[in-house]
Structures are given as C-alpha cells and as structure tokens.
C-alpha cells in the first residue's frame, strides 16, 4: 500500500447530481481496486488556464488515498475511457517529507468535512459533567 493523490477535472456541462454520480463512480472504481480513501477535496468549478476540448472551465476534485501499486494502472485506464473526465493527475507520495504533507492535507480535510470524530469525543466528557450537575440539582 502506497500513498497517492488523484486530481480529476470533470466537464463543466454536467449538473450537480451528474457530477456527484461521476465522482461516486470513480470512488467505487478506487475501492474496488483495493484503495482506501482517506479524504476528498472538492475545489469546485474553476477557470482552466487553457482550453481543453473547447471547455473554458472544469470542476476539480482531489482524492487522497492509499492503494496497492497495481491498482493505479487499472484506475487510470478506466479514467481514460470515461468521457466526462477531461484531465487527471496521480501523484505518489514516498519520502517522509512528502508523507508529512499528505497526512497534513488529510487531517485538514477530515476536520473540515466531518467534525463528527471531534464532536463525539467532546460530548462524552460533557455528558458526564452534566449528569453530575443533574445529580447535584436533584439533591439540592
């Protein structure tokens, strides 16, 4: 298992649901090939620096994941077939400094998208306190 980052540019003509369907399709491909997705970053629709297939804009999404090396070739083959994906870029993170960056990005994104793990830890402590408070009030 190695650490990877996959940037994908999707056609701007798709609707929101179609875009999500395409991204889920990509997610399924990744997971089917043994990848574990750590984080997903949606950068939204932005202007391309130059025209690609006559498109001026494209919607960018980045996946951070770990996967066996053989998976990448298969995933890239399927991306090339799919017409809605106009550009992609897979980057491998190998040495310690690169991995530190990968971890930092994943941490940043998981914090933003799901504050759930932090929230779960906090209410446990809070609930204990509140229960103690309740006991005090009932006694009083």
């Amino acid at each position, binding site marked *: 298992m190695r650490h990877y980052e996959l940037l994908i540019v999707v056609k701007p003509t798709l609707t929101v649901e179609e875009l999500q369907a395409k991204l889920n399709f990509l997610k399924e491909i990744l997971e089917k090939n043994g990848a574990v997705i750590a984080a997903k970053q949606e950068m939204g629709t932005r202007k*391309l620096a130059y025209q690609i297939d006559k498109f001026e804009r494209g919607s960018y999404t980045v996946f951070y994941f770990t996967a066996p090396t053989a998976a990448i070739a298969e995933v890239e083959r399927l991306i090339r077939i799919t017409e809605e994906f106009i550009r992609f870029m897979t980057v491998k993170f190998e040495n310690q400094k690169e991995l530190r960056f990968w971890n930092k990005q994943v941490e940043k994104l998981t914090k933003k998208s799901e504050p759930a793990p932090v929230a779960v830890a906090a209410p446990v402590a809070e609930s204990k306190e509140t229960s103690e408070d309740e006991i005090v009030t009932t006694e009083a």
Partner: protein
Amino acid sequence: MAEKRKFARKYCKYCEAKVEYVDYKDAKILRHSLSERYKIMPRRLTGNCKRHQEMVELAIKRARATAVIPYIIDTRKVVAVPFEQLQQ
C-alpha cells in the same frame, strides 16, 4: 576594499518559509518562480536553492498539465479575446 553591495543579497524564499513540499495545486506558491509569460525562472534570478528549485520545477510541470497554470501566454492569445468581443 570591496565596494558596498548595491542590491540585497538573494536568498531562497522557500527556505525562509520552510516549505517542505511544493503543492502543484497552489498557484500562489509557484507564482514566485514564474516569469510574466509563465516561463520557469532560472535559479540565478530568483535565488532559489537547488533543492527547492527542483521541487518547484516538478510542481510547475504538474500544474501546467492539469491546467492550473498556462503553458505559455503569447500575443495571439492576448489579442484574440478583445477581437471576439468586438465582433459580438
């Protein structure tokens, strides 16, 4: 006696900022090492250290491939846009 230095000594801005990994998606970081026409600036002009220059080069090439940064800006491109607007 050596003459007084007229210009500030060049130094690596990336070392100063303690950049460990240059992200190709962030055009702001790369802008420092690009010329007006989006060519990669040589080390002798920017003062980048070799280690960071190599990282920046790779990041710029990746950014170009994913249309984050243009490959070139030529006169044709600059002229084409206002002309189209005039026709409409």
